[in-house]
């Protein structure tokens, strides 16, 4: 199953003729992504890595169906590209661009909500369902298919946790970076809901960081009862207060947004909180074993009842 994207997802790349566009066209094709088209106004009719280029999204839609788009354009162009995708009816828009103005994100987020479109990002690595497809810029080789869902604010931490899980022989259903900005499309809660409904995802790893309130809001949601084990890790335990740690969203100010407050909220909500990667891996292993045992038990009961 996986969430958001699967083997059949037809992917568009907005910004395909840029330097990054060309590079990631190659990486995506190498990974087996069904990259059906690219957009670059004024360059319609050409091809990048064998992928047809169109001037506009509506033009591309005359030639192919599109399920998801990767927006890989300069920050001030991201808003128009996202609006074009949303208004053209694409249901999943992944905005990679970093330094997108916050007012642009707020507008796109609201428009997407009104139109029933899902936005991932901005300032994200995107989404990967390992072994199936990716709509993102992550190196596919470090991820592997399996039963763990990963959601993180930080892109590089998504990579690192994906790679660590893979090293330990634990695969993933889907890994998603929701982005490092203070306002983002899908937030933890939206992704947690997707994982809850996905049969293949047995355990969820949630990776937060200092700043903002996304983790605390997710904790409130988890408190209402979540069907799967959630293992949480918060980056920035040793970050000094008042300093912006790289991401626009990562700053501890006025006592709010510290890793301690996030850990406390998540622990109270029943998440398994871990402070190091080895603790996290151990917790994932244990949760998977427990879920597997429960699955066997249910199966046994079902058989006994003749189902």
């Amino acid at each position, binding site marked *: 199953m996986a969430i958001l994207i699967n083997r059949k997802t037809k992917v568009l790349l907005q910004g395909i003729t840029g330097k990054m566009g060309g590079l990631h066209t190659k990486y995506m094709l190498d990974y087996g992504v069904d990259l059906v088209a690219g957009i670059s106004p004024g360059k319609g009719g050409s091809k990048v890595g064998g992928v047809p280029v169109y001037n506009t999204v509506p033009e591309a839609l005359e030639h192919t169906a599109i399920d998801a788009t990767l927006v890989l354009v300069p920050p001030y162009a991201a808003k128009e590209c996202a609006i074009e995708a949303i208004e053209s009816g694409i249901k999943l828009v992944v905005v990679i661009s970093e330094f997108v103005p916050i007012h642009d994100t707020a507008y796109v987020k609201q*428009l997407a909500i009104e139109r029933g479109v899902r936005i991932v990002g901005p300032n994200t690595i995107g989404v990967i369902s390992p072994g199936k497809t990716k709509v993102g810029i992550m190196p596919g080789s470090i991820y592997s298919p399996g039963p763990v869902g990963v959601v993180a604010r*930080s*892109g590089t931490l998504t990579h690192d946790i994906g790679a660590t899980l893979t090293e330990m022989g634990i695969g993933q259903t889907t890994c998603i970076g929701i982005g490092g900005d203070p306002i983002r499309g899908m937030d933890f809660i939206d992704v947690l809901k997707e994982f809850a409904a996905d049969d293949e995802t047995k355990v969820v790893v949630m990776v937060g*960081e200092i700043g903002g309130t996304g983790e605390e809001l997710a904790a409130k949601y988890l408190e209402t009862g979540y069907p799967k084990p959630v293992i949480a890790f918060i980056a920035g335990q040793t970050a000094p207060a008042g300093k912006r740690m790289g*991401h626009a969203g990562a700053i501890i100010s006025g006592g709010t947004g510290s890793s301690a407050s996030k850990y406390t909220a998540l622990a109270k909500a029943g998440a398994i909180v871990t402070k*190091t990667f080895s603790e996290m891996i151990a917790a994932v292993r244990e949760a998977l074993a427990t879920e597997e045992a429960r699955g066997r038990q249910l199966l046994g009961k079902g058989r006994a009842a003749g189902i």
Partner: protein
Amino acid sequence: MRLFEHEGREIFAKYGIKVSAAVLVRSVEEALKAVETLGYPVVVKAQVLTGGRGKAGGVRIAANQAELIEHTGRILGLVIQGEKTESVLLNEKIEIAQELYAGATFDPQNGLPVLMFSTSGGMDIEEVARTTPEKVLRMHLPPTQPVRGFRIVDFLRGSGLQADLLPKVAQVLQKLIEVFHGSDATTAEINPLVITRQGEVVAIDSKMVIDDSSLARQQIVPRFEAGTPLEARARNGGLNYVQLEGNIAVLGSGAGLAMATMDLISHYGATSACFLDTGGGISSEKMAEALRICLATPGVKGVLVNAFGGINNCEWMGRGIANVIDEDKPTVKILVKMRGHSQDEGWKLLEDRNIPVVKFGTTEEAVVQIVGLVGKGA
């Protein structure tokens, strides 16, 4: 980026919000000249970016020339929460009938712009919101829809404001929303917004924060917080760098990864000399500069490079590191954990120079290794 009060007032005026008459001065001589048009009494206000200037003695009323000389002289150079006052704003003294608060910001819970209003103006609004939340009205403004005037009047009805003031105040709020969107602000506050004895609505202070990602399109020259020389150098190179006091420099290809690496270093009993996040899209040159800054960090005994070739690739990053090794021949211990696009090419560049590389291990293993190489001493 925070704006000074006088900069925010200029923006308010540009959008048609009436502001009290004021003149920015940088010396007592300038103040004496400015007061000729403003007259006495005059309010002398320190122009600083930090809060709490009132409590720190940064706002005074001068009734005559002697007081103006005294207050201006004292406030210029006054250090408020570590920030030296370089200029003061002389403000006409307004006869106030009522003090209000008006603000626009983003609601972090849902990403929507939110308009805020209170008749408890002139006070610390965060304190008012904490102790008497019912006194701060809030209205979300979906950015895809126009804000209708009647909605604002309707919103203000519950504030306790006199009926005859509703349309006048609503007009200012409408303009404040225009300021908020038009100047890419993340915060636009007027505190206090006053009703004068003559019944006018006038802004006598401003607090504005502009989104850092929008400075270029707003044609605002970035003004950075004071930092160490290395922090300034990193900023110029487009790198996020925070200087700390330990001995292991953390160079990460992303903020989350670099922070988690620092956390693990601390967990294993050592301390970080710095946090450096290269951001995405790193070139060889940028990686080289990042490494050089880490190597120049005071107290550094080891550098842990923890990077992924995602939007950037490992060959470019490896070449940057290799160039520093070849050109600078550093003696500080360097450990590189790097994976992702073009990793084989990147690894080869490092191995050719005998730089230890963690290829498939975890961040935790890399941290244990660098702590072992460098030792735990601070």
